[in-house]
Structures are given as C-alpha cells and as structure tokens.
C-alpha cells in the first residue's frame, strides 16, 4: 500500500516537473515565469529525492537549486534589463 502511494506520488511529481520544465524552456509569457518554473522544477526534484530515500541530496537541491540559483537568475535578469534601458 505504501509502496503504491509512493509510486503514484512519484509519477505525479515527474509529470509536474516535465510540464514545468517545458514551461521554463519555452518561456512564452516572460523570463520571470521561466525562472520561477525552473526553480519549481528544482523544488519538486528535491521532493523526489526525498521519496527516493536521499534526504541529504534533497536538502542541497532545495537550498541551492531552488533557492540560491533562482535568486542568481533574477539578479542577472534585473541587471540585463537595466542595461537595456540605458
């Protein structure tokens, strides 16, 4: 029972990650939404690592992948935009 529940959750997570990854790559709406969906992919990946029994990898992924990297992308994006206006 618990095994099937984990399986269903993993499949749902994988589908959500794929959708978000496609959203991030296509970037139809704006670059901000692309960055946010890339960060969400990392966040869901960390949940996936937790389900696969690797809590330490999940911690790193959540802190660096979805936290610091998203900040870095937004920072660079704001700097690039400022360069456009000048």
């Amino acid at each position, binding site marked *: 029972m618990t095994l099937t529940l984990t399986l269903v959750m993993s499949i749902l997570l994988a589908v959500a990650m794929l959708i978000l990854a496609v959203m991030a790559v296509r970037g139809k709406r704006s670059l901000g939404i692309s960055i946010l969906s890339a960060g969400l992919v990392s966040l869901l990946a960390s949940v996936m690592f937790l389900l696969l029994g690797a809590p330490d990898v999940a911690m790193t992924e959540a802190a660096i992948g979805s936290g610091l990297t998203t900040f870095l992308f937004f*920072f660079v994006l704001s700097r690039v935009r400022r360069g456009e206006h000048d």
Partner: protein
Amino acid sequence: MIKRLSLILLLAGLGSVFLGLMLTYSADESLNQTASYYAEHTAKDLGAANIVTAIIVTYRGLDTLGEVTVLFLTAAIVGLVLAQAKRREPGRALPPAGELLLTGTRLLLPLILLFGAYVFIHGHLTPGGGFQGGAILASAMLLLLLSNPLQRFSHRLITVIESASGALFVFIGVLGIVYAGGFLDNRILPIGTFGELFSAGAIPIIYTLVGLKVGAEFSSMLVSLSETEEL
C-alpha cells in the same frame, strides 16, 4: 529543413541510447565490495551513525577538501570580477519590502540559522552535513538581503570566518597524519558512544568547519552580487 531533420535524428539517437540503458538496467541485489566494507566498518571503526558522512569526511576526506577548494575558488573569482564593478550607492531609494517579507524574515531568520547549525553539527547522526548546513545558512543571508537590499555586511568578518575554518580544516587533517591513521582521520579524538552528539571523533568539528566555510563562501558571493550595480 536539414536543421530540423538533424534535430529529429539527434533526439531519436538520444532516445535509443536511454531506452537501451533503461531496458538493460537491473537493480543490485547486494552491496558491492567497497560498499559492504563501508557498511560493516563505519559504525565499528569510526563511530558515525551516518555512513554517508563517514565516507565524505573520513574515507574520502581529501575529495571533500578538493570540493571546498573549488567552492572557495568560485567565491574568490566572483569577488575578483565584481571588485572592479561600480558599487551601488547606499542613498538610492528602493521600493520598500512588503510587510509579509519583513515579518517573515524576522520570524524565520533565527529559525533558519538554527536549523543550518543543527544540520552541520548533527552531520554524523542525521542526514545532511557541512555542505547542506552551509547552504541553509546562506539562504538565511539571502532572505536578509531580499528584505533589505541595502543591508551591508562586514566583508572582513566573512573573510575571517572563511579562511579560519579552512585553515583549521587542513590543520585537523594534518593532526590525523600525526596522531591517527592518516590525513583527515577522525580518530584523533575518542570515538565516544555511538549515536551521541559528541561522538565519532573529529567528524562534528570537521563538519562544523566545513559548514561555516561553505556558508561564508556562498554568503560572500551573494553579498558581492547584491552590492555591485554595474560592471
């Protein structure tokens, strides 16, 4: 047309490679030789409940030193490149941070710092360790910077923490050569009772140093990124 065709060919090739990998994959039934050595000897020899930590800090401690060095080089290069950039003048008005962000920062900041310290001090008992704890510490700094982008941190303090913990890390490693089996051997201190906080020899000390070092490196990158305005 040729571009699209080659793209489809590339995708098909990648797909067949991964399909081949997936079809021939079979899960291991038992641990291999190295893994079973670690599984049998870690608790007895090193006294660490978390085998991953024992491998990272003791068996493969030199690799960890290399990883920390790579991170240090990255932080140094970011600092070097951004040192020539224009500083953001402190007087410029920014839109104030929202009430939610400010209150959330005040509430969560001590908790995040405490959790980061917990993760690296308990590295030998629970999942996680120096790198994870350091990244959590840096995310606390990130929250502080988000709530007030004009916040200034002492670069000197960050540098002192970073270099002191790095030097102590190497010093403990050398002590391992003198007093125990080799570089970064954790048995320079008594192993203690299995599963207690002050056990597993030097592992808690080494992981605290690694955590402080990683946290300081990430923080210095974040701070120098947010302080500069333009290249």
